[in-house]
């Protein structure tokens, strides 16, 4: 965006320098505005979680609390089965991520190296099935799960979640595998390696970055999921943090007004793991998210 040299602008050096300074000023103003808008909700949730309850409900609101407390977190742990929900969320997100990536990798390999009639149609089925709204499938799924005894089952929830993120993962994986040269795999097969050996010894080592990327992205998406746990987890043994947060908001035993103190503490606890993942794996995540969209 910077004008380093501009032969077309036949202006005096001074006005040129002024224009440049002004442009810089506008740019940094834009950056500051952007940071403010993006970070304001985080600032507020974070600050609220350490603000004593009596200071939270003041008019006008205090942008900076005069007192800091950890009591909100203590309240949270004593009012809801916080650690149970945390473990449930971790299990749900890890397994959903693992299985979605495993199944996607296998399918993507078949589709990327497709040499059979109908492979385009199968790929299309994956993509078009993204358009079937998750909410519109819940009633039949509930009926099915009830008859299979899968309500409140971790296994059942992981199946649903892996399936939900499959199409996107397959799409990204296909575009990744297609970039790899096919010759090595062919050579290995000629030398008598079977399919499992080709996949494990040759393909997996090369697509490791893509696998790691999709595992991280799918973990984040599953960690954030609300709808499936909300419908299919009805006991403390399977409920996740997102359900816990929603329940805090509607719990009548909390009295009038919402327990913002505990809700913000729960929010911060829920954001923390994804924040760490984003900071550590920024590059991988960006490459994974843009791979399917940019060809």
């Amino acid at each position, binding site marked *: 965006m910077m004008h380093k040299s501009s032969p077309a602008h036949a202006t005096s050096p001074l006005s040129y320098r002024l224009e440049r300074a002004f442009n810089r000023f506008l740019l940094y103003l834009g950056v500051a505005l952007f940071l403010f808008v993006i970070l304001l909700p985080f600032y507020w949730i974070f600050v609220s979680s350490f603000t004593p309850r009596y200071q939270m409900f003041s008019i006008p*609101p205090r942008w900076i609390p005069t007192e800091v407390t950890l009591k909100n977190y203590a309240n949270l742990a004593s009012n809801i089965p916080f650690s149970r929900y945390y473990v449930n969320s971790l299990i749900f997100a890890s397994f959903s991520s693992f299985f979605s990536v495993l199944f996607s990798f296998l399918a993507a390999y078949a589709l990327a190296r497709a040499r059979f009639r109908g492979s385009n149609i199968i790929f299309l089925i994956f993509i078009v099935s993204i358009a079937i709204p998750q909410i519109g*499938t819940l*009633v039949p799924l509930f009926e099915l799960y009830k008859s299979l005894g899968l309500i409140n089952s971790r296994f059942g929830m992981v199946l649903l979640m892996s399936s939900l993120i499959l199409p996107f993962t397959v799409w990204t994986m296909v575009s990744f595998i297609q970039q790899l040269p096919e010759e090595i795999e062919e050579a290995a097969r000629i030398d008598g390696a079977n399919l499992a050996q080709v996949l494990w010894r040759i393909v997996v080592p090369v697509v490791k970055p893509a696998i790691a990327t999709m595992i991280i992205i799918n973990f984040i998406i599953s960690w954030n999921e609300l709808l499936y746990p909300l*419908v299919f987890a009805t006991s403390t043994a399977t409920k996740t943090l997102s359900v816990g947060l929603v329940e805090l908001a509607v719990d009548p035993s909390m009295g009038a007004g919402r327990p913002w103190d505990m809700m913000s503490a729960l929010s911060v606890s829920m*954001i923390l793991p994804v924040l760490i993942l*984003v900071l550590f794996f920024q590059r991988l995540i960006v490459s994974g*998210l843009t791979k399917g969209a940019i060809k």
Partner: protein
Amino acid sequence: MDSGTISSVDSPRQAIREYRRPRISKLVWSRYLAAFLLLVPALGLRLFTSVYPFFRTFYFALTDYNPAFPPLQFTGFENFVRMSKDLAVSSSVSFTIIFVLLSTLLQLFFGVLVALLLNSSFRGRGFVRAVNLIPWAIPMVVAAMGFRWMFDGEYGIITDLTRRLTGLDIPWLTTSIGAKAAVIQANVWKSTPFLALVFLAALQGVPTDLYEAARVDGANRLQTFFKITLPLILSQVVTIGLFMIVWQLAAFDLVYTMTGGGPGYATSVLSYNIYQAAFGGLNFGYASAISLVLFVLVFIMGGLGLILFRRVEVSY
């Protein structure tokens, strides 16, 4: 694998051509079998959790299915007659469309703007780009909860901010128009960074000598944007726009957590209606009928989007 057949041809490509011949040899069969085995888990899961329920919904929509009162009765189009008189559904249809179109337009606009910002060079750019990822990464539930708290009429900091800036007390969550605006703002905040990310990647693929050439020719910044930048990223803009429309038509978390559809039915969307009918009232049949309306909406808007997409693909 039968390696004897492969060694008779000298390139993989030629080998493929060999396999595709009408005569179905043993080798072809083993290839088909391998592909089939690799596809079974993924395809099976999709059929079981998405395609099967999709078709099952059409059947349930014609019944009074209620899990508390079995068995279900076939009631024909009764659910649809009931729906036509249901104020909650009709206002949800209109707000769903407004919500999706307005959100998507704003997300595209700000997405391009933010991408341009993140593509220019300034100090601390790496940090700002990392910050841009955060709204995408956090749960929608947390964002929705945070925004509800910030838009609160008495204790909210956005209400406080707008009061300080404009001197007006904006009743964000207690009036119909205010709540609609608040929900759309929260939604735009949550998804714009993702779009910006995709557009930024597209911008980085634009060769810089194009900009050099434009500058030499004396093009100003607006001309450069509309004549060079936009046409080069337009196919991404339209693709993502289409994706966001289809995806946001079924968005549930935000409305459920932030407003519960209120005040009244002001911010109720179809997905919220479906959830309430199914798991609030146990009217599975009725919920399925509303689901069909959502399917039709996805089909129409997705179809229109695809037509637009084709046009852009042709003209550029």
